[in-house]
């Protein structure tokens, strides 16, 4: 018998039986810590989640359950710290295996987390209530008009709200934008002189016509950055991360990745497409994106279930829109704002592939290196985030040609002075290369306040009309 809205939420995210009774008081406590009122929980349970997420699939609900457990765990950070557990934070975009390896080495003596990303999952994606944290950061000194990244605002916001204690170390990867790592320096100067950071960076200096991952010098430099950073982290937390931990972390990563990849491929190739883009991005992308202190057991269970359910849906011809509906691809679907997906669906267009969902051919090539850090560095440099725009356009073109969406939408990263800086130009370039109509949407990836649903509705409607009209004329 469900007695409260809190329990109803847990039921929705497939936390069942005795575990639910055990988790319930912790969840109520966690909601308080995150600043969610009973009404907020009701809104998420009855309106937001059912309207924006595929709750018809048990697998997805289980995955939301895994994220909920992780969130509850985060609200105990102060307790962990008091008990001497080492807190190791990280920020996007970092390789999660590094943190998983730290967790494997330290077990219960260490807590690994990307607290900002964790809270973005819950407060924005599932509750649509992250504004409070963004505003705290803005009031605290991250000027609204300077167009800061909302994920970074989240990091500052949760620190200022008192939810997140000072870590033993924040290992910050500044391999894409400048702001991610400078936020650590900002926190240290503004609020918390004990906030300790280890920084990993590499300049954006690949010359035109070169591929960063093919440049041994660059790979070795980044490998040295990673190795040195790990050594510095080890010194702070007081234990070593052995090669076997790194190897085990990779093994776990590859298994989740494989399942996620299967799910993405099945869904994207199916007609009708059973799952929308933000769901695919979230379920398949999250294990690549952030480490879970609670582990990936629950997540994997959800993923397995979802995979089976998706196969069945495909066999039954069940999809988000009827067979033959036009599809739109994205550079990176804003999974934390699932209403973006919904607006496309409401306008008769299926949100499909994101460039970030599937590996490019070069990423499937075997590594030229044996040293784990060099392998890691090479892997990183094969991704699209650090490469120059000339190489990146090739990547987009390859994926668009493979999945053949009816249109492609770049943008949603207007605050990112690296990733988002040349999307307008690149979208046009991709259109030239592939013939697929490409659009640019100036919008935010995480923050729904600046470019609200109503503000984007008309633009998305117009794009959908063009896509459908083009389909008809063809």
């Amino acid at each position, binding site marked *: 018998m469900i007695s409260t809205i809190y329990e109803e939420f847990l039921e929705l995210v497939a936390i069942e039986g005795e575990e639910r009774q055990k988790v319930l008081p912790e969840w109520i406590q966690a909601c308080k810590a995150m600043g969610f009122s009973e009404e907020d929980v009701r809104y998420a349970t009855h309106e937001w989640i059912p309207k924006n997420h595929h709750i018809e699939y048990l697998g997805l609900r289980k995955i939301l359950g895994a994220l909920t457990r992780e969130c509850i765990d985060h609200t105990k950070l102060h307790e962990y710290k008091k008990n001497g557990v080492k807190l190791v934070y990280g920020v996007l975009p970092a390789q999660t295996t590094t943190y998983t390896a730290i967790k494997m080495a330290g077990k219960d003596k260490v807590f690994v987390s990307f607290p900002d990303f964790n809270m973005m999952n819950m407060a924005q994606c599932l509750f649509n209530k992250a504004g409070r944290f963004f505003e705290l950061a803005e009031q605290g000194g991250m*000027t609204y008009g300077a167009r800061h990244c909302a994920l970074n605002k989240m990091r500052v916001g949760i620190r200022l709200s008192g939810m997140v204690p000072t870590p033993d170390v924040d290992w910050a990867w*500044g391999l894409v934008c400048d702001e991610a790592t400078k936020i650590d*320096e900002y926190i240290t100067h503004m609020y918390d002189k004990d906030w300790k950071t280890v*920084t990993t960076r590499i*300049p954006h200096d690949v010359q035109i016509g070169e591929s960063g991952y093919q440049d041994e010098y660059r790979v070795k430099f980044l490998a040295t950055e990673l190795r040195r950073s790990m050594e510095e982290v080890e010194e702070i937390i007081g234990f070593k991360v052995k090669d076997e931990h790194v190897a085990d972390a990779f093994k776990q990563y590859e298994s989740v990745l494989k399942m996620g990849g299967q799910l993405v491929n099945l869904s994207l190739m199916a007609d009708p497409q059973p799952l929308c883009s933000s769901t695919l991005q979230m379920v398949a992308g999250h294990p690549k994106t952030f480490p879970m202190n609670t582990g990936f057991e629950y997540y994997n269970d959800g993923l397995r279930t979802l995979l089976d359910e998706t196969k069945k849906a495909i066999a039954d011809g069940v999809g988000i829109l009827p067979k033959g509906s036009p599809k739109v691809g994205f550079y990176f679907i804003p999974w934390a704002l699932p209403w973006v997906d919904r607006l496309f669906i409401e306008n008769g267009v299926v949100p499909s592939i994101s460039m970030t969902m599937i590996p490019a051919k070069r990423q499937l090539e075997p590594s030229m290196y044996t040293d784990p850090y060099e392998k890691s560095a090479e892997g990183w440099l094969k991704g699209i985030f650090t490469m120059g725009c000339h190489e990146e356009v090739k990547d987009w073109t390859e994926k668009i040609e493979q999945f053949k969406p009816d249109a492609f939408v770049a943008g949603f990263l*207007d605050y990112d002075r690296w990733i988002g*800086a040349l999307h307008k130009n690149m979208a046009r370039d991709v259109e030239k290369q592939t013939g697929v109509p490409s659009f640019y949407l100036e919008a935010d990836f995480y923050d729904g306040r600046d470019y609200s649903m109503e503000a984007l509705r008309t633009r998305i409607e117009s794009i959908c009309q063009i896509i459908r009209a083009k389909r008809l004329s063809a």
Partner: protein
Amino acid sequence: MEILENLRKEASERAIKLSKDKQEGTRIIEYVGNFVPEEMIYAAGAKPYMMCRGGEPEPPDAVLEDMLRFTNPLARSQCGFYKLGIDPVTPMADLIIASQHECHVARMAEYMELLNLPVHKVGVPCDWKRDFTHEYYYDQLVSMKEKLEEVTTNKVTDEAMFKYIHLYNEMYDLLRKISDLRKSENPPISGTDFIKLNHYTFFAEPEYVIEQLKFIYEELKDKEGNLGKDAPRILVLGHSVAVGDYIVANKIEELGAAIVYEMLEEGFRWYQWDIPIEKDPVRGMLRQRYLDKPPVNNLEPAWGERMEYVEQLIKDYDIDGVIWYQLLYDEIWDLEYSCVAKRLDELNVPFLRVETSYEYTREAMLPLNTRLESYISVLKTRKKGEIA
């Protein structure tokens, strides 16, 4: 200021002279960012031209078809002037060398590549406290040298590099002497003129610059300024006062305050630090830019050392107030602003942020004038001792 006139004229003729040089076979090398050693370009037998023009509203807008709106206007301007066809040098440049230590410039360099301009990037690792990152920047400088040799077909010898290092050190020494005159109660040169003077030194041959700086120093050393001893003394901090972007600095001084020092990152010579004479001249170039001076804003860590330097400047130059000159959408500078504001508040030093989009219409200037007027009025009152 009349004594700057020779240098001003020379600087204004630079593009024409480069055009002639080009016709005679000299290579023209543009560059972006102070991490690119100009002295190495001269040592290659080429002529350098610094890209740091700004202060006009149309160029940043001209690139919006392709670039992010939230890129700062200085970075957007460098491509914008070219796109508008009002950049006299870029079309004839044989090479554009761009320092890669922050994203605005990094993507601007890529955009130049998209415009089919010949770009060479010099990577500068931000985590400068790690010894192996010094080697990375060193290797990048060596690679820049090789690129210069390829473009100019001249060998860049140590001898030539040392020759220019000595010349630049002489130039820095003179700039220091002139700047130090501003420690006096009534500085003989205004801040706006000093910023312009600093800019002119980029657009003339170093030998001529030195000759002129000697003359200027001799002319100024025993003179009094126009603003008087009671003028509040201002320290300007910021990313850059671009070449041509003098309206705000001018306005500050028109309102009766004296800019007595500037801590700027781009388009401004780091004249306080000589290039050390090392066995390998490239090592000296590296040390001056990367290790010996307070770090630039985007290096990590940076702000602690930068703040210590600011506090020292406040003492050395008897500063009454600090103005933070920020480029619109310069997000990292915005973060540092909050940190500096916090510290200056603790030190009870009045602090004002002025943000620019390079839009200086009367409509845009009116609120700015009001803010500057009120701020300078407070400083004057404080200086008179009417406010504790």
